[in-house]
């Protein structure tokens, strides 16, 4: 291999023909084993456009999927395609991808501006172009005022945003975010979510992973659920949730006057049971969660109930996974 003196990157040398019909991301019966441990097994999936949330518990294989996609891992079986090309040992398609890795280690001794601009130059930008680009993306993620401070002094949310900025610097068509919200406080969470939503609105293909349903739900409805290395469900969140409707759900409401709320709620036919753990608490049992949530706001507003907390203890990823895998069925 001769070093690329023209610095135009392998991307330009290797003729990857962007196939117009090829999905941005394609997994064809992909498996990955580490020794005897199977991280993912037999995943087939094709995605193009939009924001997609990859949901799964820790160890479900989300990061493995992303690393396969970024050519960091070699699939043990099946084939992975990124823009229609095999990403393993081939950095060509990365020119159109921005990747935010999961790991928290960063170059603490650099400033965010240096970090982003140095990595922009790896996309073939000159020093001056890289500076301008870095400033642009850092403003986009809202780090302009601290961009000349060392990353080591940043809070977790700022570090995540710096990582996102470094991934956005080449204006990528596909953005992969591995646990972008992990460990962030609510404020940082909201900022990052806004950034992702904005990117989705700009028409980018976005893959993000999380193990918290509510986070994903605030960003996108298109989800992929992974469980123990297998594809459990794929599609619209609401559609998935609707399937769960014939399973009894529990909703907890904390309010000033549980009794009057109970009276109003009982008028709904979907409710089939009530419980009063305390004078200000109400437990409602329903078979149709979606239907119930459609009606509930109206009841509260119409009857001017003072509701403090609505809790869906069952509506987290754990219980969805439980239902889907038949654990609670």
């Amino acid at each position, binding site marked *: 291999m001769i070093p690329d003196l023209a610095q135009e990157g392998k991307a330009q040398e290797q003729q990857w023909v962007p196939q117009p019909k090829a999905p941005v991301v394609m997994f064809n019966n992909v498996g990955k084993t580490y020794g005897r441990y199977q991280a993912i097994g037999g995943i087939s999936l094709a995605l193009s456009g939009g924001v997609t949330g990859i949901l799964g518990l820790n160890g479900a294989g989300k990061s493995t999927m992303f690393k396969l996609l970024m050519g960091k891992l070699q699939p043990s079986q099946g084939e992975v395609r990124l823009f229609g090309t095999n990403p393993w040992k081939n950095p060509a398609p990365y020119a159109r991808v921005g990747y935010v890795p999961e790991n928290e280690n960063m170059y603490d001794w650099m400033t965010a501006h240096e970090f982003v601009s140095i990595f922009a130059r790896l996309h073939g930008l000159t020093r001056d172009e890289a500076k301008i680009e870095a400033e642009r993306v850092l403003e986009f993620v809202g780090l302009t005022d601290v961009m000349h401070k060392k990353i080591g002094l940043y809070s977790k949310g700022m570090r995540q945003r710096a990582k996102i900025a470094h991934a956005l610097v080449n204006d990528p068509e596909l953005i992969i975010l591995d646990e972008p919200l992990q460990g962030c406080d609510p404020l940082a969470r909201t900022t990052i979510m806004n950034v992702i939503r904005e990117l989705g609105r700009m028409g980018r293909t976005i893959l993000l992973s999380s193990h918290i349903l509510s986070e994903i739900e605030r960003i996108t409805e298109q989800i992929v659920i992974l469980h123990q290395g297998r594809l459990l469900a794929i599609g619209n969140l609401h559609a998935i949730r609707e399937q769960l409707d014939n399973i009894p759900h529990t909703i907890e409401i904390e309010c000033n006057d549980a009794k009057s709320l109970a009276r109003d709620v009982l008028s709904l036919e979907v409710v089939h049971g009530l419980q009063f753990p*305390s004078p200000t*608490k109400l437990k409602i049992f329903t078979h149709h969660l979606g239907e119930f949530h459609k009606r*509930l*706001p109206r009841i509260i507003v119409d009857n001017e109930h003072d509701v403090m*907390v*609505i809790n*869906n203890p069952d509506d987290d990823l754990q219980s969805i996974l439980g239902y889907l895998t038949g654990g609670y069925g």
Partner: protein
Amino acid sequence: MTEESTLDASNPVTGKSRMDAAWGSESSDQASIAQPVAQTGQVFEQVYVPWQGTLNPRWMRNWAIFRHHVLGIVRKGHRPWGIPTKLVLIFVLIASMTDVALTLLFAVIGEPDLYELWGVGRNNLYGHVLGFFPRNMLYYPLVAALLVGGVISEDRSNGTSALYFSRPINRFDYVGMKYLAVATIQSFIIIGTLFLYYFVDILAMGRGWAWILDTFPLFLTTVFCAILLVVTYTSIGLALSSVSRGKFFPGIALLAVLLGTKTLAAIVNGLFDSSILYLISPYDSVAHVGQALIGTNIVYDHPWIWSLASVVAINAVSLYVLSVRVSSMEVTRE
């Protein structure tokens, strides 16, 4: 305490107030979807029973640390030494038993001339512990480097030193036990094989009491020199381990100190015919003391007392650095 504040599984504590959930989120199709609150876990009923036992004596706690490190070489469930470290230890252990094997071999063959070459004697005892090539060039420094490599710095970089210091353990006990453990493992190899060498000779050659009385003082002197060697290597190594944070830096630095000073002194000796710079080489200082005590041919020009002073100074400086670093060490993940 009111009824609401009981903590049990049926009444999870979430502490979330999410009014906006009731009004739906901003997009219209989601208007009717309640925003679920992340489950933050449940606090189960649990009773905290303070520990009422009596603390074991200090030596017993220290013994546990020591045991944890030494047993890690052979058993699981103790300090996990790396596989390469274990392999090198086994290799060096076998390689430093070559003289034992040759003694046995020639005892069996009954070849007195060859036996003289390998049997217990002044030069061979010296060579077993302090010979430069290959023992103190390849084997013992490598063992010391691998052992001290992560022994303190890894605790610092992983934050596991906090696990130690949150127990009733004195910092100096912690370091002292690590020191002893590392020195003990090296001693197994250096002094253990020396013992084996001596006693195999007695058994294989059927030595009488007269021979034993003759050579035993020599043997004890060699053991003393071996202890000096082990202590010096361990002191320097642990001092380096306490000032750095990586796993490999202390190891390379120890080798650089041991072999680099030796090379430097050799350059000066070759060019300017002055052996004085060998005083900065820990190995050469110990070797010089060993040559004087065991009574082999002295290859250095300066008096051996200087080398002894140098050994003491090297150890003192290393232990000083070690103690200063340990007492001022911040218990955090660095």
